[in-house]
């Protein structure tokens, strides 16, 4: 399944490289992920979190020519079949890394995800695809005298679009994805289980959770 999907994407990439003339060539980008974890995790509603387990199940990364649009009607107007809702400008995938990896958000370490195959040229966004079960959080939340044992998980229905501007040169480069764990959990409110679940879901899809750095390779 994965190999056939990869084949389709690479065929799409190849079509882009052909249609765009000889200027675009294949290159590579090393991809690193890291978690930014503060000493104390406090949510907007005043809960202090002590996570026993905080895991991100990464599946794939795609670089895209598409801009991240603000609203769905742009997608509807353009009729872009493969666009994520809220990810609506016309544009093709120009790079990808498919490498399932379990990333421990409490480790506060940088981890090499892999090497993305990519075309040279402009990149305006990237998509992070998660594998089931997506994001898992377990631990204890306290607020004053209140204490809640929690176990939440959320898998977004489609890849997460993140605005990202870079110009990929022939020498490729290095991409670092930093995940702001405090931002990811900031909406969690354990007043009810439903609010906590909603808070995690909204945090996972918030593109501000991600900070992307690109360092071009030496020509």
């Amino acid at each position: 399944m994965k190999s056939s999907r990869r084949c389709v994407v690479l065929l799409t990439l190849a079509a882009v490289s052909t249609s765009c003339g000889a200027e675009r060539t294949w290159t590579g980008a090393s991809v690193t992920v890291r978690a930014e974890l503060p000493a104390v995790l406090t949510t907007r509603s005043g809960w202090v979190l002590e996570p026993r387990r905080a895991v991100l199940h990464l599946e794939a990364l795609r670089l895209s020519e598409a801009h991240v649009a603000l609203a769905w009607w742009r997608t509807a107007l353009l009729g872009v079949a493969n666009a994520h809702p809220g990810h609506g400008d016309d544009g093709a995938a120009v790079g990808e890394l498919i490498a399932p990896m379990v990333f421990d958000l409490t480790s506060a370490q940088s981890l090499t995800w892999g090497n993305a195959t990519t075309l040279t040229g402009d990149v305006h966004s990237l998509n992070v695809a998660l594998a089931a079960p997506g994001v898992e959080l377990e631990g204890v939340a306290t607020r004053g005298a209140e204490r809640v044992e929690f176990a939440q998980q959320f898998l977004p229905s489609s890849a997460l679009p993140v605005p990202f501007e870079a110009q990929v040169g022939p020498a490729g480069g290095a991409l670092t994805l930093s995940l702001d764990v405090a931002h990811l959990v900031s909406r969690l409110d354990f007043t009810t289980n439903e609010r906590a679940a909603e808070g995690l879901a909204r945090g996972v899809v918030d593109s501000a959770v991600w900070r992307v750095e690109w360092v071009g390779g030496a020509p």
Partner: protein
Amino acid sequence: MRSLGWVGLWLSLSACGPGVLRITAWGEDFIEQGIPSEVFVDGFDVAYSKFELTLSEVTVRSSRTGVVLSQTGATRIDLVRAGPHEVTRLAGTQGSFDDVSYVIAGPVQVEGSLGAGARRKRFAWSFAVETAYTGCLQPTLGPSVVLSAGREETVELTVHGDHLWYDDLVSPDASLRGSVIFAADADGDDAITEAELRAVELTSVPTGQYGPGAVGNVFTLWDFLSTQVRTVGHFRGEGDCLARPR
């Protein structure tokens, strides 16, 4: 015979002279007349008394010739007044321009009332946002505007006042909804304020409503409206542009 020659000369000069793109802005009936309850999912309606914004950096480019025509200065307009309103006039030689862009700068001031039946609450919001609209595209006409020698063509930048009330940025099933914003009036003084909207976390509204998708840092109803207000800019009626914060 001589007079015919003069007419011919005048006609040829007219045909070869510069043309003008008259750029206008219009808020349509939804801003000028109000948004009726029939289009809201929960029976609410909206009447605007002010919908004021600044249009600037109106630019048309030709990717073929590289010619660029740009607005100088900025034009502030209250779209509640009957329009269309002239924003700027761009003069140039004949050609087709396939890249239209503009900026809506703040503050975007939106005032009016929201209600259902006899129950009404006022709002007077000021959004300090600046949004660039690029790559404008009209479903029927495409991206291009044509400047004809010696002629004046009108290009409308349309502002959709109903978009502020959509209850989702992500879902194509989004609906116009008034009840959640109406209920944000915590002190019951019949005025829905920025502070009251900031106090409503989106995790507290019914699940599935007010989804901002990938847009970052949208935590409260005020954050949501501040994002929605960036999506009001359109192109020639139902045409759309790529909206990006500046």
